[in-house]
């Protein structure tokens, strides 16, 4: 359990900080690779969503310098980042990963998108090869825990995603959404989802604009909307009541002067900008205009926080499940730590048994098949009896903190050091044996 995690999320850091740390999808594999070759790190994974940027690692000694990596990777001064960072180790890191995957740490507790995002990050890291044994187990378990939380609690049932909050806000501005026009700027999954919600609530027509025109056409086709060339954005935008923007532009694409133009052309009818881009697409001074309402990701968080209270109870239940799962995972990892030792022990004794049988076979002369079986059963029986206590002790010890000491003693007693390496190399054999051990106990 030498897991370490460092990162920022919507609670710890304002949008401005998250904007600077966000890693675009295309650069995610590089980030994973960079982290995995950082001193003291064995495995690495990077999770970067709109609301969080997290670096998860399995380290050689549990004390890798993740902060150093951050400052080096983002070329930021320590004092800029320090107040917003959180770091978890060992059990706490496991708990955090479970909570994130189960959507308990989300801006909208219980929303379903985060699990998909974690799965994507995991797939990316696996593809790069920076996630192997330990992190692999951690995340496989995290997905199972997330599923358990989802099925056993109501946390996700009335899921208020960003999208549905956007719908509620739009209703507070426009009353009914019947006949309203939506403009999607930048074809992304989140904006697509929000658009789908708005259409489901009665919005009539939809425009889509994207820097890559083909993607706009594709998305427009999906909603039977109209694709708009990015150059025509400002000429068309005033026809929309609701603008959902999520481009990857490093600068704001909607500024105050655009807002003034739009308002003039639409006779001051209100406009609602839902800015889910990080960094933001709508400049903050837009909100100063009468009749223009802009909500960025942080604002949406505030808007949804009222819903969080309703789910607190379910979330508590979910937290309890997570606690149990963390214990279980820890125990399992320890058990896994003793497995190679048990396997070596078994193999060691088996080799001795075979050697002894071979040695005495000559003296015993010819044996009938029944006698062969009896000898086999006798020797095996003795070994199993002898092995029983050490294996049980090992398994019990695995759950305690003294595991390493006991493993050490057993290895020394049976002189298992060299053999263990051989076992480790036979990955397949080991995993079969693991299953055997698990089923037996």
């Amino acid at each position, binding site marked *: 359990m030498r897991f370490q995690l460092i990162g920022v999320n919507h609670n710890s850091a304002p949008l401005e900080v998250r904007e600077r740390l966000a890693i675009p999808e295309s650069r995610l594999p590089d980030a994973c690779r960079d982290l995995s070759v950082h001193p003291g790190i064995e495995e690495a994974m990077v999770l970067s969503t709109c609301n969080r940027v997290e670096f998860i690692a399995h380290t050689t000694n549990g004390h890798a310098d993740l902060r150093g990596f951050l400052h080096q990777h983002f070329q930021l001064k320590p004092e800029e980042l320090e107040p917003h960072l959180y770091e978890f180790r060992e059990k706490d890191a496991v708990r955090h990963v479970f909570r994130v995957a189960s959507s308990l740490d989300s801006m909208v507790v219980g929303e379903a998108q985060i699990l998909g995002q974690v799965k994507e990050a995991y797939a990316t890291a696996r593809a790069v090869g920076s996630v192997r044994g330990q992190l692999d187990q951690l995340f496989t378990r995290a997905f199972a825990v997330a599923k358990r939380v989802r099925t056993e609690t109501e946390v996700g049932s009335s899921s208020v995603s960003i999208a549905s*909050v956007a719908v*509620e*806000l739009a*209703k*507070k*501005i*426009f*009353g*009914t959404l019947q006949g309203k026009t939506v403009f999607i700027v930048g074809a992304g999954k989140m904006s697509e989802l929000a658009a789908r919600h708005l259409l489901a609530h009665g919005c009539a027509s939809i425009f889509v604009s994207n820097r890559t025109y083909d993607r706009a056409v594709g998305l427009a086709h999906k909603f039977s909307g109209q694709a708009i060339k990015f150059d025509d954005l400002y000429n068309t935008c005033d026809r929309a009541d609701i603008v959902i923007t999520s481009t990857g532009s490093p600068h704001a694409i909607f500024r105050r002067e655009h807002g003034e133009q739009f308002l003039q052309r*639409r*006779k*001051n*009818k*209100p406009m609602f900008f839902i800015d889910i881009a990080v960094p933001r697409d709508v400049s903050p001074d837009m*909100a100063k205009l*009468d*009749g223009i*309402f802009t*909500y960025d990701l942080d*604002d949406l968080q*505030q*808007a*949804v*926080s*009222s819903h969080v209270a309703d789910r607190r109870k379910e979330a508590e239940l979910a937290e309890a499940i997570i606690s149990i799962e963390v214990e279980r995972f820890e125990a399992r990892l320890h058990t896994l730590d003793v497995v190679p030792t048990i396997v070596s022990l078994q193999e060691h004794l088996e080799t001795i048994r075979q050697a002894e049988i071979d040695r005495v076979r000559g003296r015993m002369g010819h044996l009938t098949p029944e006698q062969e079986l009896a000898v086999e059963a006798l020797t095996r029986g003795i070994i199993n009896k002898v092995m029983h206590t050490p294996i049980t002790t090992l398994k019990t010890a695995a759950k305690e903190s003294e595991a390493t000491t006991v493993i050490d003693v057993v290895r020394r007693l049976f002189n298992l050091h060299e053999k263990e390496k051989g076992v480790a190399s036979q990955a397949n054999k080991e995993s079969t044996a693991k299953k055997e051990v698990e089923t037996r106990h």
Partner: protein
Amino acid sequence: MSILWLRFALACYFIGLVYAFVALRRTSDLFSRIALHAASLGMVFHFVSLVELFLSGHVVWASVHNGESLLAFLSMTFFMVTYAIYKTTSPGVVVFPIVFFLTFVAAVDQQPVLLTSFVSNKGWLVAHIILIFTGYAALVLSFGASLLYLVQERRLKSKQPASLTSFLPALEVIDQIGYRSLLLGFPFMTLGLLTGSVVALTTYGRVDFLDPKILLSLLMWAVYMVMVFTRWNSGWRGRRAAVLATFAFVAAVVAWAANYFSTIHRFAAS
């Protein structure tokens, strides 16, 4: 008897008044229902009071306090119509206090001041009063709506979670209430002024445009027209519309107060 019924109405409107203050702080469905029922009951008493007044046979409509009572009743009618269409009691936040104030003033004074001018054509006078007061009532509602618009706009801009649970209707609904009552009130106000001119012409043979009452009424009408025009032409709403509505409202109040200074449109103690 009329004044007794009016006092019953006043008691009911008092609940509405309390609602208006509570609603500003927190939302309560139950309380808004109670306020609505109380207001309806108040309107019944109020109506009875007005009918009795009418049946008494005097042209006491033209007294200040009965005028106030009529205006309060018409404002409540507008409020109820708005409720029927938009299912919102929130304009009550502004309408209830005004109605309460008007009814209160009308209900405490037992000796109404009467219009002393001799009016030859009573039919025109009654038409004038009802039209003008309907216009006033629409203006009251429109004024209320524009204030609520500001509140709701501010809430949405402040991005507090409360903006989602606020008791106020959607911004565009408030805007519609304001604009529609503005549009509805305008012809009444215009016709009210025209009938007033007819009354003046038949009584005095001329309209004295320098009389404070007439001057202020014309000013109020002009502001009213500017409001309708800017709204229709360039969609003014929010802060600018609220400023205009406040201005029109103040002009209306001043025009009403001008009764005390006007030589031809004067009330005096009976």
